[in-house]
């Protein structure tokens, strides 16, 4: 009896903890849709009466997945005479590269998958994706933001020219946001979206927002929280600096006074002014969570975050968008990084036309964009890909409250379109074969931000290592042809 009991306890412990590692996702579709769960990957099957089976692999967050699932379901329903089954597999961004590598090695690529601008060359050079020139409606393509269309054109040597290989999933940017309630409490004026803060102004505002609210001798509210991997580059680019030289072949951080100035300023926010959580506090609870908890005045806001921040259950504070601070040595423009990922069609698919129709429904179709950008769903997951719609109707729908969005939406448009106050730049990892050089920079950053090593010493120490990794990436890029 005792042995049975022991076995039972152990079995239960095993079952319970095994389930902890899995993120169960339930299908929201009904009828013919079934759902399989395998760790963090979910596969949805949508069935029709035709012959064609289409496999799709993308990464998405739950709320994005639900909208895409609906769009694909609608497409399957309207094409049920030709479609037998659509396998819609969604994974996490972290696992995506691993799954794609495995699929490539096994020569079993899905029919439709994501390709980022940084990978277009490799995918095209190795013949994994097919040109969309003859497959998609060129008028619809001409209505998209030119920046994202150019990112997916390639002529065999230069990006931005030649045939189109992907339809953009989105054009995103990482803007800046502030918690209005904390500004009110501190009696501060809200940031002016027309005139982003200078470095000096920003520090002063952050100091006013940094407080020990419960009087226990420890700070519990800070001016800003910076996630190094996402929040450092706007300070660097906004000060006219870069990590690499113009042709992305040399790491220049140790030789660039502008870079070091931005890095020193970023470090001072934590070490000297203490207006950010310390490195230790950051490991205990990340900046995103502290922002959601109302502990920080400023935090980054990606275009994909807007729906979550507008949701009172997730973020119960008033907030708005503003510009990243502008460094003294740049061109005076507030700078955010922009990014994109695109839908590509495998060169081996049996159904190129059908796949092309499907990715158009997800990328260039106005109804699809209305759903993804919130007009018909109420959740703004992205800025619409269709430029004209985004600049006119979409903004009107935000102004009249149809689409829940931050009032200063022009900040995002400023980063996407560029103007005399704002600019958006693709991060430099977009132009290199892998991001190992960038990872190397990030790895030692906590030691700088905890004051263990100076900015100058760190730049001098890490630059040769980054250069070695970059040289390696260039070599791999050159060898990445079959």
């Amino acid at each position, binding site marked *: 009896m*005792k042995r049975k009991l*022991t076995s039972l*306890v*152990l*079995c239960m*412990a*095993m079952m*319970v*903890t*095994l389930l*902890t*590692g899995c993120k169960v996702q339930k299908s929201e579709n009904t009828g013919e849709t079934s759902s399989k769960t395998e760790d963090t990957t979910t596969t949805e099957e949508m069935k029709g009466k035709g012959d064609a089976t289409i496999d799709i692999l993308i990464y998405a967050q739950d709320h994005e997945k639900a909208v895409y699932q609906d769009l694909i379901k609608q497409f399957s329903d309207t094409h049920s005479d030709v479609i037998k089954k659509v396998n819609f597999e969604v994974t996490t961004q972290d696992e995506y*590269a*691993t799954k794609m*590598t495995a699929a*490539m*090695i096994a020569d079993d690529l899905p029919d439709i998958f994501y390709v980022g601008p940084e990978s277009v060359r*490799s*995918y095209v050079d*190795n013949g*994994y994706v097919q040109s969309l020139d003859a497959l998609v409606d060129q008028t619809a393509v001409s209505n998209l933001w030119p920046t994202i269309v150019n990112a997916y054109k390639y002529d065999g040597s230069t990006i931005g020219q030649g045939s189109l290989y992907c339809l953009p999933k989105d054009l995103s940017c990482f803007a800046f946001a502030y918690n209005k309630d904390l500004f009110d409490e501190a009696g501060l004026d809200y940031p002016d979206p027309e005139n982003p803060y200078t470095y000096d102004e920003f520090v002063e505002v952050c100091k006013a927002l940094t407080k020990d609210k419960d009087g226990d001798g420890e700070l519990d509210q800070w001016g800003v929280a910076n996630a190094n991997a996402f929040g450092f580059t706007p300070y660097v680019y906004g000060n006219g600096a870069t990590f690499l030289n113009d042709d992305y072949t040399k790491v220049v951080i140790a030789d660039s006074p502008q870079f070091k100035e931005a890095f020193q300023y970023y470090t001072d926010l934590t070490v000297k002014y203490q207006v950010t959580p310390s*490195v*230790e*506090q*950051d*490991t*205990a*609870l990340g900046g995103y969570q502290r922002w959601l908890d109302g502990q920080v005045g400023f935090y980054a806001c990606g275009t994909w975050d807007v729906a979550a921040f507008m949701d009172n259950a997730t973020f119960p504070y008033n907030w708005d968008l503003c510009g990243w601070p502008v460094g003294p040595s740049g061109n005076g423009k507030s700078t955010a990084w922009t990014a994109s990922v695109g839908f590509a069609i495998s060169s081996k698919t049996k159904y190129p036309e059908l796949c092309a129709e499907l990715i158009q429904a997800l990328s260039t179709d106005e109804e699809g964009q209305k759903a993804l950008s919130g007009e018909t769903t109420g959740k703004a997951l992205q800025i619409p890909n269709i430029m004209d719609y985004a600049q006119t109707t979409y903004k009107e729908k935000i102004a009249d409250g149809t689409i829940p969005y931050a009032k200063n939406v022009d900040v995002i448009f400023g980063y996407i379109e560029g103007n005399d106050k704002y600019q958006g730049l693709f991060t430099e990892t977009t132009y290199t*074969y*892998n*991001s*190992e050089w960038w*990872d190397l920079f*990030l*790895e*030692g950053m*906590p*030691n700088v931000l905890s004051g263990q090593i100076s900015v100058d010493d760190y730049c001098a120490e890490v630059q040769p*290592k980054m250069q070695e990794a970059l040289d*390696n*990436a260039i*070599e*791999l890029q050159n*060898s*990445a*042809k*079959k």
Partner: protein
Amino acid sequence: MDMGEMKRKQSRRMSKMAKREERWAWLFISIPLVGFLLFMAYPICFAVFASMSKWTGMNSLVDNFCGFDNYIAIFKDEKFWKTLTTTIIYLIGIPIGMILGLLFAIGMNRKIPGVRVLRTMYYVPVVSSLVAVSILWAWVYNYDYGLFNTIYKALTGMHGPNWLGDETWVKVALVIFMVWKGLGTSIILYLAGLQNIPRTYYEAAEIDGANGWHKFRNITFPLVSPVSFYILITSLIGGFQVFVEVQVMTSTGGTNYSAATVVYYLYDKAFSNAQLGYGCALAVILAIIIFIITAFNFIGQNKWVKTME
């Protein structure tokens, strides 16, 4: 029919039977054999070949053949040596776990009330999912809200260390975790070993006037040495392949890659940075290291591993 012909016929019959048996034998071993060839031998050969190529998963494996370039690069690779050192540091947990395992097993080998409950409790971490318990321990080590630092602050009034963010403390944290996770296995194995030691040995020793330490030193310790050897070998092999706890408990391998192991680095190179050839070379080197250490252990076992005989 003469005798010679009969013998020849008999031997032919026998050989037919033998052949039939041999065919059956081949059939029986073919399943594991095919499994071995397909899932072990082929991947190993493939990995060895791929380790000599600048293979990215996208480009041609054969066209980018580079001989021993990857191996030469690895020996000059600072990160490889750093991760290898960290991996070896984590092995400190093995003797600690073995000593604790033996002590706990000796304790639990007595007839005390609730011993079964205790044994079960200590075994729970072994059957628990590594990912789940790693997430749990990441909370235990949390700088602000973690169990350790909360207790430390209550006792001393000072803030405890940044367990997972500091380059040194992260190693201590992971060693403690690995000892905790592996303790149940050591205890169970040592318990089995202890229960195999005949009581008469101890009785004889007692008659000779041996005290507790003498009995442990001269009977218990030598007679559980085969178990110690088994735990040592399996722990060393497992210790060189630590990955999940680092992946779950530290983001990006810890500050300055201080928590990363060789296997973590291998994964990072192969899948995050599309250097599959280099990753394969790392895997081959790791396999060689494990093989050499295991071989040394087997050679050295005669000096300290004793059996009942």
